[in-house]
């Protein structure tokens, strides 16, 4: 009997936790709604999104295959794999492949580091900025197993979706991409 009472208490606790969590999420969602999802910055020419703003880019169903790479200029392994991403994109663009480079650079780095870096390396992938500090909220929405390490890459099309928390070589990326292109 004592055991049962304990269980009921635990159940009550879990239920109340879930409720409060839901409320928190609602609050966050409301707060995001009231903000502009795409901010503008006169000196930085890339779209700047919060998670809600970037979500459509991660869920397109237009027949194309998207390579969505999460990176930052301060992340050395990210910089090392960028040439491979760009090369594969150049070769596979005509097969309906798109490359989205989601920069996680901090706001103080956008003008000083990100803009010059993209220009210097003449990046052809679509560069967008994800600026949403509440990471614990959005990381699991992109992939529930993502621990938060970068580089990380999402490859998806209408039929298939795979998330990689690691860097790629040219061959590795081609191999994974081919599974999407048949």
């Amino acid at each position: 009997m004592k055991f049962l009472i304990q269980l009921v208490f635990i159940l009550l606790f879990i239920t109340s936790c879930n409720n409060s969590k839901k409320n928190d999420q609602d609050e966050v969602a409301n707060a995001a709604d009231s903000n502009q999802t795409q901010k503008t910055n006169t000196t930085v020419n890339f779209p700047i999104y919060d998670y809600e703003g970037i979500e459509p880019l991660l869920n397109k169903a237009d027949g194309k295959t998207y390579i969505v790479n999460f990176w930052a200029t301060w992340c050395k392994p990210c910089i090392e794999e960028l040439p491979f991403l760009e090369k594969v994109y150049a070769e596979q663009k005509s097969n309906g492949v798109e490359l989205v480079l989601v920069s996680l650079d901090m706001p103080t780095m956008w003008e000083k580091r990100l803009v010059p870096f993209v220009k210097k390396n003449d990046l052809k992938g679509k560069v967008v900025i994800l600026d949403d500090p509440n990471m614990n909220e959005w990381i699991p929405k992109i992939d529930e197993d993502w621990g938060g390490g970068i580089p990380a890459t999402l490859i998806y099309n209408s039929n298939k979706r795979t998330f990689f928390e690691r860097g790629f070589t040219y061959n590795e990326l081609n191999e994974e991409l081919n599974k999407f292109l048949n």
Partner: protein
Amino acid sequence: MGTLKTFLILTLAFIIGIIPNTDVNLSGYEIGDLATDFSLPNIDGKMVSLADYKNAEGFLVIFTCNTCPYAVAYEDRIIALDNKFKEKGVPVIAINPNNPEVKAGDSFEAMKERAQEKGFTFPYLLDDGQKIFPQYGATRTPHVYLLEKTEDGNVVRYIGAIDDNYQDESQVKVKYVENAVDAMLSGQPIEPAMTKAIGCSIKV
């Protein structure tokens, strides 16, 4: 209603039943695991172990470094955590997991300089040989492990980020680590016990 209740109780019993069995350690610690002690060189030249802290209630083991922008953004908040919780028996133990040969800015000398500049109030250890961070399962900096000292050893109670806004301390809505330590010290359940954050990958 009776059936639903039975179902819920059975489900719960099942969940409770399986949690203690999940201590297979493929990718670092999970909540409830026993954390290893270590003996690592501190910037003051001495070796530091958790066992040295006879009167501690627990530890905030924080994998952090000199060179990661996120780690730098959190330095002041790590000092504040140490100031708040050291006297309550839960000191900060910072460990730099990066390989200094790969990241010159994380050399032992550079660690000493940074600690002095910022006035670190806690030990700042070098994971010499990079043996400790893989056992904990740290993947990025900063990465926090809250340990509770028990008769069986140091039990992992919380893993993750310090709070929910690295950019702007004034915009923080949830102080994950503070809440976790407060809950642990008052015997309350820790919620959430795990959080995620973007960080700098550890340099091996």
